[in-house]
């Protein structure tokens, strides 16, 4: 396929980045693309903060003794790592950065349905981050990101309420984002753009938004009750006064389990785009992937009790949740099979976005399969609160979500910035990340199986080798994350202009200039073909010869 990058491209004269200048034009913008960049800068800061806490954790765990910091400080480190990463990076990253930027363009609209609410969502997010970061500066919180009662309500003397309200505001921000996406996707699609012609990225974000709207308010009320209990000491969750700590866990996990699908579904949406583009092939089983996204969102609400198998929940309820948890694996598996089938007999190229996508396929599969072990009630009794759990969710959140995020950033960077980055460096970082990631987290499966508990700053000597491997891997992973910061920033000034479609991809976003004009399209596009019609291009090029397979 003739690469459009071989033709000398020029930046468009007027686009969303130079449409207006000055701090006010950014802080008071209602352009979804600028808001996406505001989010990009904010989530990157929070990611680096969360990463710094992870560094402290892995440094302590280099030695079996708790010698780098005392146990209370260690508790603060893993708590703040979790809070920062979950609430301030993983949940917002793909929807608020890539979703905000792309969804209006992908549906052929000038902006989201509610641009001012979009801006409000960013401010609310920053407010939440300020609360959480302020709490960390003031002395931190040590309850674990899960804020379990009665420790968080009665015994902790750290900044619980401030941190929890940080999460509260981050959650409210995500409700507003989800609301905006749902209305935009329902009401503002261009002529000819039926539901089943939408990019799967949009379907993924639709499903994510449903979760955000239905689930987030429940953790909001859990946080309110936690704060009320902590301030007034009235026994809502305190056993001494008749309260039930498990009630808090029900309220907490009713959101926090679907939250993990908020984290993974957008990444799956990215993967669908990447696999099709870099296999030059229409996705296998479009409807199955679309319906699986919605299925994951819906089923994901029925399984939260699998976090509470050993908390005092009834065994009967545990059995129900165990069975339902098995079911939710099915739509995810369907997607993995379909992506693989898409690649089969495709014309595959290995640019950086594709390396991230392929990494996702392997790492998400491992993470997902290990989830099945944990869903099995009896096995979870052994594995709960061990490093097996930590490895499982990091395979999904880092091996899944972050790979998808980075793949998406690399794929759409030319569209967002108008510039190309050096692909060699990008591929190199992708490989460094892949190696570093596996070295960090695979040993943790073994550690967990062998019985090393989580959230302890000291451990028995026999676990040291694996811990050292894990910490070594973490340093490699960290390097892998830092390199893109360098070349992506470099590309803003020195990168080759990208042109509208450097990848030769399908989708409305590739029809606009790079960077796009403020209102995305000069005229509302009309959609006449199905999604991912890569084969048709191929046929046209080869003079209607049918491709092999």
């Amino acid at each position: 396929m003739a690469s459009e990058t071989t033709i000398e491209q020029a930046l468009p004269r007027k686009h969303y980045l130079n449409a207006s200048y000055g701090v006010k034009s950014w802080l008071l913008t209602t352009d979804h693309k600028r808001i996406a960049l505001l989010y990009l800068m904010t989530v990157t800061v929070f990611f680096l903060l969360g990463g710094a806490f992870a560094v402290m954790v892995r440094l302590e765990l280099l030695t079996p003794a708790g010698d780098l910091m005392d146990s209370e400080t260690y508790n603060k480190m893993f708590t703040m790592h979790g809070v920062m990463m979950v609430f301030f990076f993983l949940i917002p990253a793909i929807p608020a950065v890539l979703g905000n930027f792309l969804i209006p363009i992908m549906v052929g609209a000038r902006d989201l349905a509610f641009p001012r609410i979009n801006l409000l969502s960013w401010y609310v997010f920053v407010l939440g981050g300020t609360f959480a970061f302020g709490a960390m500066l003031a002395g931190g919180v040590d309850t674990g990101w899960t804020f379990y009662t009665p420790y968080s309500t009665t015994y902790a003397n750290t900044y619980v309420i401030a941190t929890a309200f940080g999460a509260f505001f981050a959650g409210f921000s995500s409700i507003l984002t989800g609301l905006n996406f749902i209305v935009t996707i329902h009401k503002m699609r261009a002529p000819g753009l039926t539901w089943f012609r939408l990019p799967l990225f949009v379907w993924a974000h639709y499903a994510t938004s449903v979760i955000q709207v239905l689930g987030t308010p429940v953790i909001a009320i859990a946080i309110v009750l936690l704060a009320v209990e902590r301030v007034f000491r009235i026994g809502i969750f305190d056993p001494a006064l008749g309260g039930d700590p498990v009630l808090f866990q029900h309220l907490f996990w009713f959101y926090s389990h679907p939250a993990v699908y908020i984290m993974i579904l957008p990444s799956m949406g990215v993967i669908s785009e990447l696999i099709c583009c870099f296999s030059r092939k229409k996705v296998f089983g479009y409807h199955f992937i679309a319906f699986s996204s919605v299925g994951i969102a819906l089923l994901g609400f029925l399984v939260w009790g699998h976090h509470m198998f050993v908390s005092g929940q009834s065994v009967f309820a545990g059995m129900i949740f165990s069975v339902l948890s098995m079911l939710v694996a099915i739509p995810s598996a369907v997607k993995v099979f379909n992506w693989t089938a898409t690649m089969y007999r495709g014309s595959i190229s290995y640019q950086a976005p594709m390396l991230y996508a392929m990494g996702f396929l392997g790492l998400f599969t491992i993470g997902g399969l290990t989830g099945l072990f944990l869903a099995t009630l009896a096995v979870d009794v052994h594995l709960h609160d061990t490093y097996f759990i930590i490895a499982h969710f990091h395979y999904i959140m880092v091996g899944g979500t972050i790979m998808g995020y980075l793949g998406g950033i690399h794929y759409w960077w030319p569209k967002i910035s108008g510039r190309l980055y050096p692909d060699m460096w990008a591929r190199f970082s992708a490989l460094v990340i892949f190696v570093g990631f596996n070295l960090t987290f695979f040993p943790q499966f073994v550690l967990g199986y062998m019985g090393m508990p989580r959230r302890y700053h000291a451990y028995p000597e026999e676990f040291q080798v694996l811990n050292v491997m894990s910490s070594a891997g973490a340093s490699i992973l960290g390097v892998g994350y830092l390199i893109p910061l360098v070349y992506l920033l470099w590309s803003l000034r020195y990168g080759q202009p990208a042109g509208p479609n450097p990848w030769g991809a399908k989708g409305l976003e590739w029809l606009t200039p790079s960077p796009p004009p403020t209102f995305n399209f000069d005229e509302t596009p009309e959609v006449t073909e199905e999604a991912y019609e890569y084969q048709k291009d191929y046929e046209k090029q080869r003079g209607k010869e049918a491709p092999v397979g």
Partner: protein
Amino acid sequence: MAEAAAVVAHQFDDAEQQRDSVSLGMWLFLIQEIMFFGGLFLGYTVYRYKYSEAFRIGSNELELAWGGINTVVLIFSSLTMALAVHAAQLGKRKAIVAWLLATILLGSVFLGIKGIEYTHKFEHHLVPGPGFHYEGSHARQVQLFFSFYFVMTGMHALHMVIGVGLLAVLVWMAQAGKFDSAYYSPVEMTGLYWHFVDIVWIFLFPLLYLLGRDR
């Protein structure tokens, strides 16, 4: 179609798309409010099941007369709100203002009565916390009942205060002639919010005040 105030924002193609989108947006907001209050109802349900006797006692300590009057007042305010939307649909400026003011008045009466009830609870040492004191049996779980009473009605009252604020803004807008029969979305959407707050009370009243009064 009257052009008057039907300003279509730049992201929308026409007034119809704008109206549909705003309406769907408000419904989504209300759906998340259902889940927000729902968490409180869940907690209440769990503890009512576990401590039925204590919660029965707690319900009987509430002032049924005030609660009943408030229920009537709030449903009445839903009527006046619906009539305000009706007036907006017909473009009757003075009627819109009048019905909105009536709604504000009724909402304020509701909040005033809640203030009276809360004051009585305070005087009887039934506010949870260090000042709580209950003489009868199951004192600890009666405190739990009152925790839920105050959080649930308090959260509801907070939503009403916000509603009254929104209504005040609407009065100002209506008085300035911003609404006509082609454009009255803000009135309609605030109406949806107000009716939702009414529905929350429709469930709060029997669950808090009525269960346990059959002995």
